[in-house]
């Protein structure tokens, strides 16, 4: 294949990866930013989103688009409720202690993964894309649904930005992030905010998974890669910095796509990890993180 079309294909693949990664990492970053909790189980919420999407989509027979829309609404909601329960049963009891919550979320990772294996099984199961068309470039064909994934991710991220920047809920979240005790002194129910943020973070991962599941199948081990990449993105972008997360996700997603296509996927991972190391050495707070953090 010539260079031009090859680059186009690489960029398209990169854009899809970046879109999904940005949504997933945004959830992780939000949880860390507001709660100071490193949620190792984040990838499992992603996996649960995909598995539940399969389940919801199979409730409706006949119209795949309808099943998908039900999944798009239902799966994140269920995952959000599960995150609320996890917050109430585990994180709150640990008083959101940063070290204890890491260990606790590792435990949650295994519990969720094994529950999925037990009740959903080891198979990779497909969800039919809501719209099935193929975009024919002169050199290769491309799934039209992937463009929808990119568009949907952009819309969702705008929604999160609006929520944080333009609503009272967002104001309360930001206040809690800046100074927990002061927020509490001003009458903000910090525990409810924490619970809500944890649920929102999990729901972002779940919705990203619902978008990706018509492309990749739902499988009980699928949470591992998104978790790793999300951490890479969040560290590069700056822990807790949402703008940094999005920029880093686009950068990592695009470079992963392009390097994978022209060289090898392994090299893409190596370079991403190297970048994390460099960022940690030279800018420990991340490219967009507050210097003092």
């Amino acid at each position, binding site marked *: 294949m010539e260079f031009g079309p090859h680059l186009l294909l690489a960029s398209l693949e990169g854009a899809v990866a970046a879109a999904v990664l940005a949504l997933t990492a945004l959830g992780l970053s939000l949880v860390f930013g507001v709660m100071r909790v490193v949620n190792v189980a984040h990838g499992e919420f992603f996996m649960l989103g995909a598995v539940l999407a399969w389940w919801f989509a199979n409730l409706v027979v006949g119209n*795949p688009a309808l099943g998908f829309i039900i999944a798009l609404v239902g799966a994140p909601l269920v995952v959000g409720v599960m995150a609320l329960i996890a917050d109430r049963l585990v994180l709150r009891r640990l008083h959101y202690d940063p070290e204890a919550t890491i260990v606790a979320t590792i435990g949650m990772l295994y519990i969720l993964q094994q529950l999925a294996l037990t009740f959903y099984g080891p198979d990779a199961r497909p969800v039919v894309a809501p719209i099935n068309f193929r975009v024919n470039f002169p050199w290769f*064909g*491309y*799934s039209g649904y992937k463009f929808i994934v990119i568009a949907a991710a952009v819309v969702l991220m705008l929604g999160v930005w609006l929520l944080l920047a333009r609503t009272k809920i967002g104001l309360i979240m930001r206040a809690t992030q800046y100074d927990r005790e002061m927020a509490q002194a001003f009458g903000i129910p910090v525990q409810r905010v924490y619970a809500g943020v944890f649920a929102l973070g999990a729901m972002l991962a779940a919705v990203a998974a619902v978008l990706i599941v018509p492309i990749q199948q739902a*499988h009980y081990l*699928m949470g591992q890669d998104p978790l790793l990449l999300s951490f890479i993105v969040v560290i590069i972008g700056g822990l807790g910095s949402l703008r940094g997360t999005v920029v880093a996700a686009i950068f990592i997603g695009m470079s992963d796509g392009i390097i994978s296509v022209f060289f090898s996927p392994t090299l893409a991972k190596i370079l991403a990890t190297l970048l994390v190391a460099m960022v940690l050495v030279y800018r420990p707070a991340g490219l967009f993180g507050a210097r003092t953090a």
Partner: protein
Amino acid sequence: MVEKKRTTAPVTGVGRRKVITGLAAVGGAAVGSRLLPGYVPYIQAQSSEPIRVGFQVHRTGIGAAYGRWYDRTTIAAAQAINDAGGINGRPLEIVAEDDGTDPKRGAEVVEKFATQHGCDIAFGTLFSHVVIGSAPRAGELKIPYFVVSEGHHVASGGLNRYTLQPGITDVKSQVIAMAPWVASNLGKKVTMIFPDFAFGYDHRDNFAEAIKAQGGEVIETVAVPPTESAFFKYFPKIPKETEVLYHVMVGPAVLTFVKEMGEFYGANRPELFGFIDSLEAVDLNSPGLEFLDGSYFWEGHPRYAGDNPSAFELNYREKVGVDLNGASRNDPKDVATYSHMFGCWETLHIVKAGMEAAGYQGPADRAKLVEAVEAMTDMPESEAHPQGAKVFNGKTHQAFGHQNITKVGDGKLSVVHRTSIEDGLYPDEVDYTTQAL
């Protein structure tokens, strides 16, 4: 610093020693209580003690879909053998352990079979990296290790005298048998896509050689990491002049692989020749697979029974609970790993035949069992061998059999060519019988 170490070390040392003593006491008690009740009847009535088969199964990890069907087939085979009177009148007992499709865990599982569970043999591993990781330990422990893996690692001489593969053919034999058909019916310029580990390399190395012998060539090879979940980026590496695209993928993302290949090519695709591994446990009528219509697959054991299944075939399907379309009788969407799992059925029947020939009594006769299996040659098609007749080579510890090439059409796979056993023979690369037992 040094002083600090000196003062703290004895304290922790005592603690550790205490813990170890406690553990040993508990462990000893556990072993004692487990052995004692079994020990007495073992002396009194040796012949009624069950034969314990350690079943190394991929319950979790990337091999889990295969593992579930290997499990069902193994249970069904043990049931069938027990219903027919067991082995030398002794019942067969399956002791299953999950290896997580992980080579390190695999070696531990083999060790557990030999030392903790008191198993007579170890059996049932599929993924080649797990086999390669586990076989050396089986050799050291001198426990016969019957793998159902397809890899060329047994016959290549890379393993040891205690590792045998009598129930399924190896990749080298499969590709040698089919290369002539591919070259004369599909094309001579081949691009290969395969998983980036031992199993994939078996395909790459042996098929490249086999197609060369037919006047063809492999013009490009694309290795994909086995845990990959997105494949689109690999397709630009396929040269335009490719006549045949040879694909063999494993793991949970196989369906994505085939779907994305369809999106990439649309109607203008090269001929496709795939190993059914790319679609094992996947419903052929899944959305996105229409693109495979008219393409060809290798199948070890045809998933769709066709118009004229043998009585042995029907009996086997009935016993393992698979319908005529290769799916579970209880759930038509639960598709079997049909081209591989017959190996579990046949291997257990070979173990039975081997133990009966050796007059097997217990672990002391393990070497006799290996020798008895090595002495086997012809295995005619029968209830024990529903996939078809096989010839076993005692020197290379590898079975040879028929291969099937099937074509996709009307949402089914139909056999278009079945190779002879001779098509898949190749010169011996090892003589395990010269190794000490």
